């Protein structure tokens, strides 16, 4: 068989991949191929590490951010503008997070901010009792650090996203959404309006509007999102590899004279972080800087405080901030176990 037929066969065999690649390049669904001015109107679940960084870089010259809201997706319960009310007059806050954030992720972000000569005056970190299980940066394109932080090649960086794009669990919902804009697949594509504030990168949860509209029905209609639960004291999860990262965080905060507030949020399943873990966190991050809201308490007992089992609502975040900054009693009337 000659070269011509070989080339035709090769082209045909590669055709589906070439089509997928073409769609990817034209659409730039993850917003990593071309530079963008706005990230708040994407219908694709974006890499929060990348979005936060790009937004920060584009705004830092005009807004002197010196306060950073960091941690995992539970930061959606905390709003930068509400946090600023407890800070200094000229303090401006910015949210830079990752879904399922890890200690290494925090270290990398803070070091990147230091490198950008950011003032780390105030840092509010929101995590959960199980955020210390995995210490390293999460795998996958959706958690990878931007190129100017990680230093990886353009080819490697883009390959990760191309790979994510053709993965069926992304590709199929994405193509469905392409043909039906109302189609939603949680964690992949959505049909919402804005999902983040264009200045502070605060999360805008579309469920707030739904709750406003439906009221109590919101929870009665979503029973499966609120499974049964029972209180449990968990085993320790902080090991030497996590301690190394906590030590790094301590050095960063000490170096920058940072006012740190470290919150372990209320878990819907009523799980209580182990006191040994809390002791370690306090030892490295400061006795007065670590706040534990896990276990069975006023927040966790009330299911109306949650959008679903994974995330609590801003009414919880607002109250937590009020308690911390007004030095109000942190005794949350921990309820007697049923």
């Amino acid at each position, binding site marked *: *068989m*000659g*070269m011509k*037929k*070989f080339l035709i066969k090769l082209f045909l*065999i590669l055709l*589906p*991949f070439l089509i997928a690649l073409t769609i990817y390049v034209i659409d730039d669904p993850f917003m990593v191929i071309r530079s963008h001015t706005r990230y708040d109107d994407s219908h694709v679940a974006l890499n929060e590490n990348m979005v936060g960084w790009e937004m920060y870089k584009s705004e830092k010259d005009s807004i002197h951010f010196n306060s950073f809201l960091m941690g995992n997706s539970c930061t959606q319960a905390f709003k930068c503008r509400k946090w600023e009310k407890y800070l200094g007059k000229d303090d401006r806050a910015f949210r830079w997070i990752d879904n399922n954030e890890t200690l290494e992720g925090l270290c990398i972000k803070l070091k990147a901010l230091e490198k950008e000569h950011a003032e780390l005056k105030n840092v509010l970190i929101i995590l959960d009792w199980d955020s210390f299980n*995995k210490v*390293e940066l999460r*795998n996958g394109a959706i958690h*990878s650090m931007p190129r100017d932080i990680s230093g*990886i090649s353009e*080819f*490697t960086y883009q*390959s*990760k996203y*191309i*790979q994510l794009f*053709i*993965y*069926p669990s992304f590709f199929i919902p994405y193509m469905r959404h392409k043909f039906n804009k109302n189609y939603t697949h949680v964690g992949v594509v959505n049909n919402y309006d804005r999902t983040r504030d264009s200045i502070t990168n605060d999360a805008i949860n579309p469920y707030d509007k739904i709750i406003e509209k439906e009221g109590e029905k919101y929870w009665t209609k979503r029973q499966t999102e609120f499974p049964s639960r029972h209180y449990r004291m968990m*085993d*320790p999860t902080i*090991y*030497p*590899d996590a301690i*190394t990262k906590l030590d790094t965080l301590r050095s960063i905060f000490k170096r920058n004279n940072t006012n740190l507030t470290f919150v372990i949020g209320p878990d819907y399943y009523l799980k209580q972080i182990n006191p040994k873990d809390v002791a370690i966190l306090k030892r490295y991050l400061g006795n007065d800087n670590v706040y534990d809201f896990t276990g069975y308490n006023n927040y966790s007992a009330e299911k109306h405080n949650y959008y679903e089992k994974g995330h609590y609502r801003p009414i919880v975040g607002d109250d937590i901030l009020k308690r911390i900054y007004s030095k109000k009693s942190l005794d949350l009337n921990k309820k007697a176990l049923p």
Partner: protein
Amino acid sequence: MEFTSLAFLILVTITFFVYYIVGKQFRECVLLVASCIFIGYFNLWFLAIAIGISSITYLLGRFLEKENKRKSIAWLYSGSIVFLVGIWTFFRHNGLIIPLGISFYSFQALSYLTEIYWGEEKAEKDFWKFQLYMLLFAKFLSGPIERPSALLPQLQTPKKFDYETITFGMRLILLGLIKKLVLADNLAGAIDGVFSNPQDYSGIQFVMAMLIYPIQLYADFSGYTDIAIGTGSLFGLKLSPNFNRPFIAQTTADLWRRWHMTLSFWVRDYIFMPVTSAFRQWGKTGIFISLLITFGALGVWHGVGMSYVVYGLIQGCIICYEMNVTVIRDSIIKFFGKKIGGFILMLRTYLLFAFSLIFFRAGTMQSSLNFIKHLSFQTNSSWKEMNLGLSDHFCIITGIAFLVVLIFEHLDEKYDLLHITGKKTAWIRWILYYTLIFALLTTGKFDCNDFIYLQF
């Protein structure tokens, strides 16, 4: 440029088209230019050194062949060996940067001159052909170490476009990419941590890292070799195999007939055989001494430091031991039967090899002994730590990938799968190709690492 890089893909693609478009008399030139670009892309000094060593080897070969006096030939040959070994030792052990591929093409040069000295080969008269023999980009980085009789004749006749050979090569490259990107690089993430941050891991995790490392190393290096051989095939060249199902070996001696074959056959033919011949009057003692010298040299080839020597010597000692206990091996087979007995011996061989690789991977005696000290069945919190931090998803992917590789290799040995795949009807082939490409694209780790043997 790495075999898994975009730059390499572009180079091979352009070279491929130019190679088959130009006239046959220019094809050697196309490959040589591509090889120079490949080597120079890393560092122009690497290219200069490689061309220098290759040119000197060419001249030495011509002189060796021309020289009539026996004594002069011996001196010239000895001088050549001293030069090549000296240059290799200098670069390898000077603590500065090691020119890429030097361990491989130096050994190729040594083999070439030795074969001329022994009268087995004629010196290559064509300078450019010889350069291509030494610098061919498909095998430059980490072998296979090609004997002159294997590669030089192939370079004499320009290759025509052969669909079967080319598609065979592409299938092999795909297989190599799966081994490297799906199996080796996913495992690397788990194992590297144990070696670089031992204080963070439990005893059982050390055991798992030790047990899994041979698989990572095999997938990495045999994956590289498959890509190298496959790339050669794209240009009609048949490069030598480096692996032959090493994990079915029932003795360490057999393992080394199946693992990094071009290197192990090289040390067998150019070190072990001459040394055993010299010591043969000492009987078994002579064999033992030869084994220790040979495998010690093998260890030194792999790296600077005692841990590499120990790695080599362990192999030699085990083979010496095995030579003396054939009775025990035969009893195991007799007692348990060929299948179960054979399996027990395979397991034993694998475990010994895995243990010896601690010295290879750790890189220093201190880290090796520290690693061994940590081996135990203790966990920090639960048996789930055995997954070395890999998610269940990755454990399943790598487990399946390893099984697929083992099954494929077993069937390939029986039925020559790679070739017969090419003969199947189009729809069967295409379903298979799409499945494999899809598996590679969705589960491969594209952000990863150099090939392990690049460091040599």
